[in-house]
């Protein structure tokens, strides 16, 4: 039992942080969404991420992947969350897996090489078949290159979004996300993977938890920096416990989210019986931490937090999107209570 990162893992983290800072910083996101151009992720940056092997990091080597575990992917996604990097990272990585493990190796190769795959967010009137087919109303996140991932407890699939009817683009609460609404009669997937072969949805919980952890950590650090620098009544505002204690609570929640996310990633990597329980717990912990920390940070920042002057609003919106894409908290909590307890 050891939850410390190894030197190899530290290298993945450092390289990711440096790349994100150079190529996908919030400066660029801001410029793009302020000028009204979408998508916020530049093709060049996305291609560079593919070049680095990000979409194949956890894919087994026999499918052309790098062969790391979900733990390494979780560490990468935490950095993506911390940077608020735009783009369909979660669905692309998972779609590469669905394609490869279901025998669609050519599609897997294409995705790994940089064809982004969006995420299907089911609407209230929808059905997902056992073969991964989809019917009814859906929303599509960042499905700009024509493909989208569908996730359900029993199956994961990839659909061709061009075949969906009534497709229309709507503004997303997070301006760096391309959001479309569509309706399907019954659309068969181009690839699907039953959960009995691999529970892709559990991995999605962990990757989203990782991003939300990164968001919570960013918010914690932004609030602490401001509490140290901002002087009022002749003292840094951080001397006041009304500021200091919420900052401490952010630190605790971020660390809990980080620890639980690693625990869940390893539970899946090691095929523990309680893998789903741990993955859902990670999602719940990280979603709570991200919501609490981003909203608390806005309060700590005062007036500036309410404006576009500071990046805090980006992180609030990003957390809002990511903690809902697999269904909201009531869905996760209800499922968590149905499961057997931890091992």
């Amino acid at each position, binding site marked *: 039992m050891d939850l410390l990162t190894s030197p190899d893992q530290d290298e993945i983290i450092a390289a990711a942080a440096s790349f994100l800072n150079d190529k996908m910083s919030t400066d660029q996101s801001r410029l793009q969404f302020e000028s009204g151009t979408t998508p916020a992720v530049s093709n060049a940056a996305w291609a560079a991420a593919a070049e680095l092997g990000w979409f194949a990091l956890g894919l087994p080597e026999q499918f052309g992947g790098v062969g790391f575990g979900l733990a390494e992917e979780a560490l990468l996604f935490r950095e993506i969350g911390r940077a608020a990097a735009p783009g369909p990272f979660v669905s692309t990585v998972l779609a590469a897996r669905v394609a490869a493990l279901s025998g669609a190796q050519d599609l897997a190769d294409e995705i790994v090489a940089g064809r982004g795959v969006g995420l299907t967010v089911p609407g209230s009137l929808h059905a997902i078949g056992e073969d991964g087919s989809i019917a009814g109303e859906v929303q599509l996140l960042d499905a700009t290159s024509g493909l989208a991932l569908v996730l359900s407890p029993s199956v994961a699939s990839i659909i061709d979004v061009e075949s969906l009817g009534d497709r229309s683009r709507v503004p997303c609460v997070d301006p760096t996300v391309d959001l479309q609404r569509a309706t399907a009669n019954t659309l068969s997937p181009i690839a699907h993977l039953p959960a009995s072969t691999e529970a892709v949805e559990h991995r999605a919980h962990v990757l989203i938890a990782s991003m939300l952890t990164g968001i919570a950590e960013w918010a914690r650090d932004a609030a602490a920096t401001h509490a140290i620098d901002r002087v009022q009544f002749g003292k840094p505002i951080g001397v006041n416990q009304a500021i200091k204690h919420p900052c*401490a609570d952010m630190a605790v929640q971020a660390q809990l989210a980080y620890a639980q996310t690693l625990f869940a990633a390893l539970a899946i990597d090691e095929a523990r019986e309680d893998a789903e329980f741990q993955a859902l717990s990670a999602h719940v912990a990280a979603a709570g931490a991200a919501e609490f920390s981003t909203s608390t940070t806005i309060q700590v920042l005062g007036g500036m937090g309410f404006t576009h002057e500071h990046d805090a609003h980006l992180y609030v919106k990003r957390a809002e999107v990511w903690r809902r894409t697999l269904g909201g908290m009531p869905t996760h909590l209800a499922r968590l209570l149905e499961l057997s307890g*931890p091992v």
Partner: protein
Amino acid sequence: MDLSFSTEDNEFRDEVRTWLKANAPTGRRPKESHAMREFDLAWQRTMHAAGWGGVAWPVDYGGRDLPLTQQLIWYEEYARTGLAPIDSRFVGLAHAGPTLMLRSSEEQKQFHLPKILGGEVIWCQGFSEPEAGSDLASLRTRAVVDGDELVVTGQKIWTSFAAVSDWQELLVRTDPDAPKHKGITWVICDMRSPGIDIRPIRTIEGGADFNEVFYDEVRIPLANVVGDLNDGWSVAMSTLSFERGTAFTVSQVQLASSIEALIDMARSRTSINGRAVIADGAVAERLAKARADCAALRALTYLGISKNAHSTQPGPEGSMLKLQYADLAKRVYLLGLDVIDTNALAFALDEDDSDWVDRHLMAFSTSIGGGTSEIQRNIIGERVLGLPR
């Protein structure tokens, strides 16, 4: 990075589980203080005889000096016995004993340590005072050197098990003119000394293990001072890192068991509206959230132990764990009352249900004792985030 334990560790877990199953006391722990003392000491003697008396103690002092991972396993298995995470042996084994190992003379060690480990004596702590709680260093209990003795006059408070203790780790002010952290001395006090008056304080759940201790010219040999005169603050702070987060595991595992027990109860019991308790959406949501939060608490325990296994300096996880445990324990045990519902009115209606009332009342102490949650937040804010004092 991995979650799994080595084959050796798994064998160790089997050994521990088998031994605890065969040897842990099964009867209810007595509520009366003297009977409780005898119960706790008998259990310590049983553990010591089998080599389990001090899993974190150095081998030189008769302990097992287990690696942190095996300490974690020991405490996880210990928690399953249902025995209290902290009992009257706690100060001796986890605070005074380790302080003596680090700071006392050879004679003091030889005299006291075998008695603590061997289950012969109970120690209590004489730190807090009516005017020195969170601000411990402002303590006022006065000690004056007279020949080869210290003469102590003053008052301590919140002293658990004082009435059944043999010895006390006592902080006294020996230099009232020095800055407050510099004039304190750490001394071993014989609780049977003339001039000591112990008055029980009844606690919220009705227990009487808590006490005020009054000192009226109590004479303590100077030979009982640990470290140097006026250096007691550094002596008191020297053991903060003992066990490095492993002993806390018992509380965390037992909280997880409580949550699972409440989920089972909520499924099998009917509320006054005729439906299963768990059919109440608000109760169900709180149970599910508690499950997730407790999972994260365990993960943080594992992360803390992983860090401490590689470093002698304990990380901030200690304060974080304590803070989060207190918050969660209070939420879970309040939820317990909502699950037993109207049975929570009676404190002794049914033995099992009254335990939930007891746990709820006891949980109020978790965010006060051993450093309040407010102090933990200050520590995290200042030492982890670097916020100004």
